[in-house]
């Protein structure tokens, strides 16, 4: 059986899939990968099926690792089922991995490896990272996925409730995680390099937003501030949300920031009393009591997820159907 041994946990490495859907009415956050696109590409590269979340018969996609700012060190141990059956190779083929998202300069046994490419690893190989070059979050997918128990239909770690992933916590030295069984599509095609479009995280294009239900609480000046300020991602940002620093946004009235507690979605931008926006991300609470001034477009969320403290962000409004 193939497994991975965590020799160093990195800054914050958690097990994530596409999230825990269907329980938000009970106050259960979705969690899952912050950058769902990178997770999906990594899984596809190693031949793992991707899921489409749905309320009826949701099949969770494979779980991968999400590493934040500083990557983990991982030792690969054991053989894949394929190797055990053939006994053909002198070194045991362990699994196929793919690394996407932030560039932390991955290496196998000290030698740099390509990102966005399926990589075969042998038993005894060691994955390390030289250091962050771009982005914030790196995804490491393994053929067959990480075989941890499903909790309410998902393997995603939700740190606050200590559920999912490995004991509901970030990985640390000494953790052992078994890999799932698989039909290794990527390996069968190993002679032909699988290519994919690598998302451009370096662009300075503004993040596209659609106005939110409480946008009318901003006056002209407030909207102008929101759409012209270059905000800075604050150090208090985490998987729940990105807090932004910069020019505070003016809201009408003294109680204008407060709303009756209401639903929030991935990418909702809240405006609390200090006038500084918060972008709600994977571990967001299901409901909140601050004005929802806008929402980030789904296609731009991966870029938001790859921002680290100190990075700059600005917004541009895109047209959407207005109903009332």
């Amino acid at each position, binding site marked *: 059986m193939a497994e991975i041994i965590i020799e160093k946990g990195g800054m914050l490495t958690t097990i994530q899939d596409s999230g825990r859907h269907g*329980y*938000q009415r009970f*106050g259960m956050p979705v969690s899952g990968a912050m950058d769902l696109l990178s997770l999906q590409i990594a899984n596809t590269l190693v031949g793992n099926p991707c899921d489409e979340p749905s309320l009826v018969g949701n099949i969770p996609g494979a779980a991968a690792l999400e590493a934040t700012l500083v990557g983990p060190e991982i030792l690969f141990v054991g053989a894949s089922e394929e190797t055990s059956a053939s006994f053909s190779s002198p070194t045991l083929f362990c699994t196929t991995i793919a690394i996407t998202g932030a560039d932390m300069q991955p290496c196998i046994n000290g030698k740099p490896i390509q990102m966005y490419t399926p990589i075969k690893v042998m038993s005894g190989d060691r994955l390390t990272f030289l250091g962050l070059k771009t982005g914030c979050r790196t995804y490491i997918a393994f053929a067959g996925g990480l075989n941890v128990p499903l909790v309410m239909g998902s393997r995603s770690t939700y740190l606050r409730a*200590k559920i999912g992933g490995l004991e509901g916590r970030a990985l640390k030295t000494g953790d052992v995680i078994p890999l799932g069984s698989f039909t290794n599509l990527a390996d069968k095609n190993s002679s032909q390099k699988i290519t994919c479009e690598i998302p451009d995280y370096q662009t300075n294009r503004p993040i596209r937003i659609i106005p939110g239900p409480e946008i009318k609480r901003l006056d002209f000046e407030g909207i102008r501030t929101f759409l012209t300020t270059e905000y800075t991602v604050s150090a208090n940002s985490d998987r729940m949300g990105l807090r932004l620093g910069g020019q505070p946004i003016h809201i009408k009235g003294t109680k204008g920031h407060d709303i009756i*507690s209401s*639903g929030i979605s991935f990418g909702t931008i809240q405006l609390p009393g200090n006038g500084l926006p918060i972008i709600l991300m994977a571990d967001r609470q299901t409901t909140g009591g601050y004005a929802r001034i806008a929402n980030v*477009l789904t296609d731009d969320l991966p870029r938001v997820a790859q921002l680290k403290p100190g990075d700059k962000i600005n917004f541009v409004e895109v047209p959407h159907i207005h109903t009332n």
Partner: protein
Amino acid sequence: MLKYFPSGDSALIVKAGDQISVEINQTIRRLLARVEMERISGITDFIPSYNELMVCFNPSVTDFRKLLDTIRSLEPTIADIQLPPSALIEVPVLYGENLSDNFGPDLEDVARFNKLTVDEVIQIHSSVTYLVYMLGFTPGFCYLGGMDSRIAMPRKETPRLKIPEGSVGIADQQTGIYPIESPGGWQLIGKTPLKLFDPNRKPEFLFEIGDTLRFKPISETEYIKLIQEQAKQTSS
């Protein structure tokens, strides 16, 4: 009169009014029941709240315009939806300072603040039937309506970093139970041995929107007995 708003390109908000009321909340529950009946493809989740229903969807399967048309077409049939009678769930609470733990460290402050005795606070708190308007904040946290304003008290100026699971508290005109250990500024008056949320139990959550609950004062002995019974159930 329902109003519709986009929440980005992956959720739709239906708003039924601008205040907290039992009627508006019932409209939300009817709407939820009605939309669920349709089993619309692409919907990934629902978040009902006091006066809104958020419908989350997968933008690669459906879109705002399609869902808007579908849900609008259901509007005339919403009033006909019969809601099931509300479940009444009793929540045993050990009030105040007990055992080695201090389960309700702020009970005396709440009494003093409202010029009541500790026993009066307990009596008032446990004599009302509360409505679960919605869940949110943390997994299994119920927003309850119906607290008697005679025991209201503002939040603590400095929130506590760790409030243990099961703590029962008061914040302004609200009362609630912490389902998981979390930071918070509520005035803590007691603790329940019940698990509001247990990922390894079916169902995982003790309450859902529309349920009602009553608090029942219990003794230390009963508290310990209930904890032991629960432990037996999870291990078997």
